C-alpha cells in the first residue's frame, strides 16, 4: 500500500540533486525573509509597571514592565518599540503559579530598576538593560526597598532575615534576623527615614512591625499592630504609606504604623476585590471592583492620613461596569485616572466631580484589567494624560488623551497552541477549477473560464504594482509590496493561528512580518495548556479548536469568523486526534477517553460510512489508563457521534519509567527516495513505515532514558535504545521524520554535556536488500520478527542545552531535511543539515573516495555552533522560543518555519539551497545587459562577416 511508484525513478532523481553545502542566511535576505514579533508578555501587576526616567537627569521616560512570562524590560512609550528585555529565572515556573507574589519590578535610584523573582534579586541599568549586580538569597524574597539617602537596597526574606545591599557594588552592608526565623516577613514601609518591616507570627496569629535603623540594621522598636482572627490575612500596602493592613472576609483593617489606630472598612471580599494606591505618604487611594460578568462594578475612595488617623475624604462614583483606576503625581498635583473600555476620566482628590473626560473614538477591544497613567496639568489648566492599559485579552495599549497610540499584541506571548493555515489553498484551488473546466462541455467551460478571469481581475492592480516594482527592482532594492493584495506564487504566505491563555484565538500573517490578521474570543475566560486538547487545520481555511471542556469551535481562519460552536461530552482526560478520509476531503475529530470500556466520540457526527472506511485502516492510540504506556484501539462509529472502541494492543512501561514524550512522524512527511545510493552504486533501503511513534521514557532512579520505536498499528516494538548517565531533570527532546529520529539529552558520562543523537533506520543491514519494502502490499500485522529495522546511530556533543527540536518539511520531500534546534542560552534558532547528522560518517579515519562521493565526511564528536552556516535567526535575540512548527511552501526547496513561546519568529529556509527559485543575488541588470551586448555585437559583426565572405568568394 505504501508504494505506488517505481522506486528506481526516485533513486535517480534524488541522487542527481542536492549538493551537501548548507547555508543559512544571506546578508541581503536577513531581516527581509524573516520576521520577529518581540514580546514581553502581559503585564503582571500594576505595581510592577511604571513610567520611569531611563537615566537620571534626562527628560523623557520609558515604560517599564514585568510580565506574566517573567520578562522585564523597557518600552518606548512613543511608538511601543522595545528598548531592552531580560528574562528572569530560567523559565522554570509552571503556568498556574501566582507569579505576582514571587516577582516584582521596582524603581531604584539613578536610572536603575530592581527586579525580584523568588530568591533572585538583580539591579539593572534602566537605559541599556545591562545587569549591575545580582544577588541570590537562600529563600524567597518578601520585599525590597531602595533607601536613596543610604545608597542601599534593603531586602527582607520570607524567614525574617533582612539584608542591606550596597547599590553600587552589590556587597552586603549589614544583615540582621528579625523574629528568630519563625515569623513570616511580608512588607516594608519607609516613611520619614524610618524603615518598618511587617511580619506575621503564625504561632500567635499576630501582626507585628519592627522598626529597623537604615544605617546599621539595628532593630529599634517592635510593636504589635493587631490580632489576627483565624480568617485574617495580611494585605500589602504601598511602601511610602505609614499604614499596614490586614483583612478578613468582611473587612479591610488599616493600622497606622506605630499606633493603635485601626480603621476598619466594610468590604465583602466574596464579591469585591480592592487595590491600594499611594503616591505620597498622606494620601491613600483604594479602588474596588467586581468583575463577574453579570454584576461588574467599580468605585474608589480617597483617604487622608494625618497624625496617624485615616479619614475618608472623597468617594468617587460607583458604577455598574468595569473601570480601572490609577493614581499619578507628575509634580502638578495628584490626580486619579479612571480608565474604562470607552473613556478616560480624571478626578482630583478634592471632589467627586470629574476634572476632565477623554472619550475614546472607538471601544477598546476588551475590558481593561489594570492601567498605569501619567496625568499632567499644564500651567494653563489643560490636562493631558497617557495611560498604559493592560486589557483582558492580554494585550497592552497606550492611550494618549483620547487616542490609542499603539497596541502591543502581548497575548501572543501566552499562546498555548498554534497551527499553520494555508492561504493559497483557499485562494486558488486553480488545479481543481481547471479540471472542472476540462471535464464539462464547451459552453459551460467557456462561461466558467470567463467568470474565473473576471474574478481574477481583483489581482490586476496588485500585479501591475508588482510588475512596476519588479522593473524597478532591477535597478536597486525596493520597498516590499503589500502582501495582502499581491498573489503569492510560491506559497510563502501562511497564517499561524494561536490560542492564547486569555481565551482568544489570533492569526498572524507570515508574509506580512507577523502582523495580526484577525482575533476572535472564545467563550472561555482562561485557557491553560492542559485545557486545550488541540487545534486542527481542517483544510479549506478552517481551523477547529477543541477544549477539554468538550467545547469545539470551528473558525474560518481566513476571515476570523466563528462558523460553529458545539459541545460534546469529552472527558477532560480524553485524547483528541483527527482522522482524514482517504477518498474525500472529509475530516473528523476523534476523542478517545482514558477510561477503558467507555465509548469514544467523533465530530462532525455525519458521514458515518466514510468514517467507517477511514477508521478501518487506522488504529488509534493514546496513553494507557493507570499505568504509563500507550494503548491501541480499533474504532467503529455508531449513532449520535459515538465510537465503539476495541483494545488491540498495549505497551506498558515498567513502574520506574515515566513517559517524557511521544512523537510521531509529521502529517506531511513524504519520502522522495526509498533508498540511499552508496558510492559503489549499491543501495541501502530505508525503513519506510508511516505508523512510527517514538516514545521517550525516563527512569530518574537509574538516571537512564529509554527510547522505544513503536509501530502504532500493531503495537510492535521495532527498536529500543537506552542511554545511561542521563540527567532526567534537564530537557529531553526528540523529533522523528522519514526513517530517522534525533533526540537530545544531558549526559553525565565521561563526555559531559548536551548530546544530540541521531539514529537512521534501514530495511536491512546488507546492501541492495529491500527487505519487504518492494512487496506490492505491506501490512503492519504480518511483519516477521526478522523484519525489524536496522538502526545505526551517532552521538554528538553540543555546547548548549536544546529545548526544542523540529524538522523542516518540503512539498515532495526531495530536499534534504534540516534539524531545527531552539537554543535559549544563545537566543537563537539553529539549523543543522541532516547530512551533518549522518550516522554513516566514518569514525576515526578519513572517508574513502566512495564515501566522499556519497557526501560523507569524517565524524567529529563535537558539534560546535556555526552561526554562519547554522543560525536561522542570525543576530536576532529570540526569547523563549520553545516550540517550532514547520510547513512546506509551494517551492520544493523551501520550508516555512515559525517558532513560538514568548517571541514569535518566522523565516523560510532552503536546506539544499534555493535551487528552484532565483534569489536576490540574481542580477537582472547583468542578464539584460549581456543579451543587449550580444545583440549589438551581432549587428556590428554582420556587415563585417558578410564583406569578408564576399571577398573570399571573389578570391576563389
Amino acid at each position, binding site marked *: 500500500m505504501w508504494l505506488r511508484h517505481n522506486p528506481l525513478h526516485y533513486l535517480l532523481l534524488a541522487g542527481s540533486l542536492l549538493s551537501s553545502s548548507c547555508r543559512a542566511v544571506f546578508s541581503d535576505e536577513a531581516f527581509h525573509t524573516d520576521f520577529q514579533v518581540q514580546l514581553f508578555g502581559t503585564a503582571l501587576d500594576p505595581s510592577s509597571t511604571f513610567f520611569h526616567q531611563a537615566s537620571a537627569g534626562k527628560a523623557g521616560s520609558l515604560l517599564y514592565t514585568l510580565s506574566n512570562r517573567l520578562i522585564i524590560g523597557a518600552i518606548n512609550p512613543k511608538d511601543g518599540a522595545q528598548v531592552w528585555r531580560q528574562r528572569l529565572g530560567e523559565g522554570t515556573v509552571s503556568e498556574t503559579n501566582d507569579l505576582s507574589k514571587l516577582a516584582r519590578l521596582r524603581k531604584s535610584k539613578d536610572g536603575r530598576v530592581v527586579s525580584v523573582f523568588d530568591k533572585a534579586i538583580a539591579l539593572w541599568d534602566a537605559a541599556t538593560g*545591562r545587569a549591575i549586580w545580582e544577588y541570590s538569597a537562600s529563600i524567597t524574597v518578601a520585599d525590597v526597598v531602595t533607601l536613596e539617602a543610604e545608597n542601599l537596597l534593603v531586602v527582607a526574606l520570607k524567614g525574617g532575615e533582612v539584608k542591606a545591599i550596597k547599590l553600587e557594588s552589590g556587597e552586603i552592608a549589614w544583615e540582621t534576623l528579625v523574629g*528568630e526565623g519563625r515569623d513570616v516577613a511580608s512588607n516594608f514601609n519607609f516613611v520619614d527615614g524610618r524603615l518598618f518591616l511587617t511580619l506575621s507570627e503564625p504561632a500567635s496569629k499576630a501582626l507585628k512591625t519592627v522598626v529597623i535603623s537604615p544605617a546599621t540594621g539595628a532593630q529599634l522598636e517592635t510593636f504589635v499592630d493587631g490580632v489576627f482572627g483565624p480568617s485574617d490575612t495580611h494585605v500589602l500596602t504601598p511602601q511610602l504609606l505609614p499604614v499596614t493592613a490586614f483583612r478578613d472576609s468582611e473587612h479591610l483593617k488599616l493600622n497606622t504604623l506605630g499606633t493603635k489606630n485601626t480603621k476598619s472598612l466594610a468590604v465583602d471580599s466574596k464579591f469585591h476585590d480592592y487595590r491600594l494606591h499611594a503616591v505620597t505618604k498622606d494620601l491613600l487611594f483604594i479602588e474596588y471592583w467586581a468583575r463577574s460578568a453579570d454584576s461588574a462594578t467599580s468605585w474608589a475612595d480617597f483617604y487622608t492620613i494625618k497624625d496617624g488617623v485615616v479619614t475618608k475624604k472623597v468617594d468617587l462614583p460607583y458604577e455598574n461596569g468595569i473601570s480601572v483606576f490609577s493614581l499619578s503625581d507628575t509634580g502638578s498635583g495628584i490626580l486619579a485616572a479612571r480608565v474604562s473600555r470607552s473613556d478616560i476620566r480624571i478626578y482630583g482628590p478634592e471632589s467627586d466631580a470629574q476634572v476632565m473626560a477623554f472619550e475614546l473614538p472607538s471601544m477598546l477591544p476588551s475590558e481593561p484589567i489594570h492601567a498605569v497613567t501619567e496625568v499632567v496639568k499644564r500651567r494653563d489648566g489643560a490636562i493631558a494624560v497617557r495611560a498604559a492599559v493592560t486589557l483582558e485579552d492580554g494585550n497592552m495599549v497606550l492611550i494618549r488623551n483620547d487616542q490609542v497610540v499603539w497596541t502591543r499584541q502581548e497575548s501572543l506571548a501566552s499562546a498555548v497552541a498554534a497551527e499553520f493555515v494555508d492561504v493559497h489553498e483557499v485562494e486558488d484551488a486553480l488545479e481543481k477549477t481547471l479540471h472542472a473546466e476540462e471535464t464539462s462541455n464547451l459552453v459551460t467551460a467557456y462561461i466558467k473560464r470567463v467568470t474565473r478571469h473576471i474574478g481574477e481581475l481583483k489581482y490586476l492592480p496588485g500585479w501591475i504594482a508588482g510588475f512596476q516594482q519588479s522593473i524597478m527592482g532591477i535597478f536597486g532594492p525596493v520597498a516590499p509590496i503589500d502582501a495582502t493584495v499581491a498573489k503569492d506564487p510560491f506559497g510563502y504566505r501562511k497564517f499561524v493561528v494561536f490560542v492564547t491563555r486569555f481565551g482568544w484565538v489570533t492569526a498572524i500573517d507570515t508574509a506580512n512580518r507577523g502582523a495580526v490578521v484577525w482575533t476572535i474570543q472564545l467563550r472561555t475566560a482562561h485557557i491553560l495548556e492542559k485545557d486545550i486538547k488541540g487545534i486542527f487545520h481542517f483544510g479549506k481555511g478552517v481551523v477547529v479548536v477543541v477544549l477539554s471542556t468538550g467545547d469545539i469551535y470551528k473558525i474560518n481562519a481566513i476571515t476570523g469568523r466563528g462558523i460553529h460552536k458545539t459541545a460534546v461530552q469529552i472527558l477532560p482526560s480524553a485524547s483528541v486526534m483527527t482522522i482524514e478520509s482517504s477518498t474525500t476531503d472529509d475530516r473528523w475529530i476523534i476523542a478517545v477517553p482514558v477510561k477503558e470500556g467507555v465509548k469514544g466520540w467523533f465530530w462532525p457526527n455525519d458521514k458515518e460510512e466514510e468514517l467507517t472506511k477511514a477508521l478501518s485502516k487506522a488504529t488509534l492510540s493514546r496513553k494507557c489508563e493507570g499505568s504509563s504506556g500507550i494503548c491501541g484501539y480499533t474504532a467503529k462509529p455508531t449513532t449520535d457521534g459515538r465510537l465503539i472502541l476495541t483494545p488491540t494492543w498495549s505497551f506498558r512501561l515498567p513502574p520506574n519509567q515515566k513517559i517524557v514524550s511521544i512523537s510521531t512522524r509529521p502529517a506531511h512527511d513524504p519520502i522522495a527516495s526509498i533508498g540511499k545510493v552508496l558510492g559503489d552504486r549499491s543501495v541501502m533501503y530505508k525503513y519506510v513505515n508511516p505508523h512510527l511513534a517514538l516514545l521517550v521514557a525516563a527512569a530518574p532512579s537509574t538516571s537512564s532514558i529509554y527510547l522505544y520505536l513503536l509501530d502504532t498499528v500493531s503495537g510492535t516494538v521495532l527498536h529500543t535504545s537506552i542511554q545511561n548517565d542521563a540527567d532526567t531533570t534537564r530537557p529531553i527532546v526528540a523529533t522523528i521524520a522519514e526513517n530517522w529520529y534525533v533526540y537530545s539529552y544531558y549526559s553525565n558520562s565521561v563526555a559531559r*554535556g548536551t548530546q544530540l543523537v541521531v539514529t537512521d533506520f534501514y530495511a536491512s543491514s546488507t546492501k541492495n536488500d529491500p527487505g519487504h519494502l518492494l512487496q506490492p502490499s505491506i501490512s503492519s500485522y504480518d511483519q516477521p520478527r526478522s523484519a525489524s529495522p536496522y538502526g545505526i546511530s551517532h552521538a554528538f556533543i553540543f555546547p548548549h542545552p536544546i529545548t526544542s527540536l523540529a524538522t523542516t518539511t518540503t512539498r515532495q520531500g526531495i530536499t534534504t531535511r534540516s534539524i531545527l534546534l531552539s537554543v535559549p*542560552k544563545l537566543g537563537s534558532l539553529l539549523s543543522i543539515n541532516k547530512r551533518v547528522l549522518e550516522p554513516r560518517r566514518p569514525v576515526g579515519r578519513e572517508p574513502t573516495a566512495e564515501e566522499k562521493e556519497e557526501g560523507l565526511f569524517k565524524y567529529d564528536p563535537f558539534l560546535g555552533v556555526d552561526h554562519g552556516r547554522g543560525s536561522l535567526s542570525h543576530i536576532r535575540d529570540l526569547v523563549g522560543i520553545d516550540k517550532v512548527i514547520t510547513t512546506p511552501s509551494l517551492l520544493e526547496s523551501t520550508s516555512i518555519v515559525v517558532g513560538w513561546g514568548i517571541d514569535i519568529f518566522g523565516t523560510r529556509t532552503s536546506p539544499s539551497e534555493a535551487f528552484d527559485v532565483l534569489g536576490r543575488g540574481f542580477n537582472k541588470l*547583468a542578464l539584460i545587459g549581456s543579451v543587449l551586448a550580444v545583440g549589438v555585437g551581432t549587428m556590428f559583426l554582420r556587415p563585417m562577416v558578410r564583406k569578408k565572405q564576399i571577398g573570399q568568394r571573389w578570391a576563389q
Partner: protein
Amino acid sequence: MAPPFLLRLTSLFLLTILFPSLISAVNVIGSIKPNNILQSLTLLPPSTSVSLSAGNLADSRTSHVYSSGAFKFQDVKPGSYLLEVNCRTHLFPSLRVDVSSDGLVEVYGTFRGNEWDNKGERRPHPIDISPVRGSEFYIVREGFNPMKLLSNPMILIAIVAIGGMTLMPKMVENMDPETRAEFEKQQQNSVLSGGQNNPLQSFDMAGYLAGSSSKPQPKSGNGSKRK
C-alpha cells in the same frame, strides 16, 4: 547585656541549622576582558550570561555579565563544573571549574568532545576570559568579479585555446614550405579533422552571423576547408 547576646547566639545557631550552605559557600567570580576581538564590553548583547553547569540542574548556576564585565556565582557547592559563556556574537573558550570541599577553586581549560578528565592548563581563580572568535552570521553574495572570472581554470584554458587558434595560421605561414607541407599532411591524417562528418563542425557560424539563408555547402570531405 546578656539577653541580646544570647539572642544573637541563638540566631547564629539557627542560621547555621537553617542554611548550612552558607557555611560551605564558595563564590566563583571572574570577568570578561575585552581584547582585539571584543573591543568594548558594550558590544556584548545585554542578555549575555555565564553558566556553571554541574551534574545536576539544582547545583548549576547562571550569572548575567554585569556592565563591568564581571560575573559571579554565589554559594557553589563542592564539585566539578563546566563554565561556559552564553553569547551569540562572540565565541568564548569553555573552562572546567573544580570546587573542593575546603573551598579551593581550581580553573582549567577543557576540550569539548574529549573525556572530562582531559584537563587543559591551569588558570588563576578570579577568572579572566576573553573571546577567541567573533561570530559571522551572514553569507555575502558574490557579485560579478572580472578578476575572479579570469582566474577560473576553465576560462584560462579557453583563453589559451582561442589564442592558439588565432596564432596558429600565422605560425604556419611563417614556416618554411617543407615543414608546412608536412604539417598539413599530418593535420589531414589526424583524428580530429578526419573521419566522420561532425554535424557541429559543418555548422556555418559565419554564414549564420552574416544572415545568409543559403543552403549548406556541399560537403567536400572536410568541413573546415573550402576550396
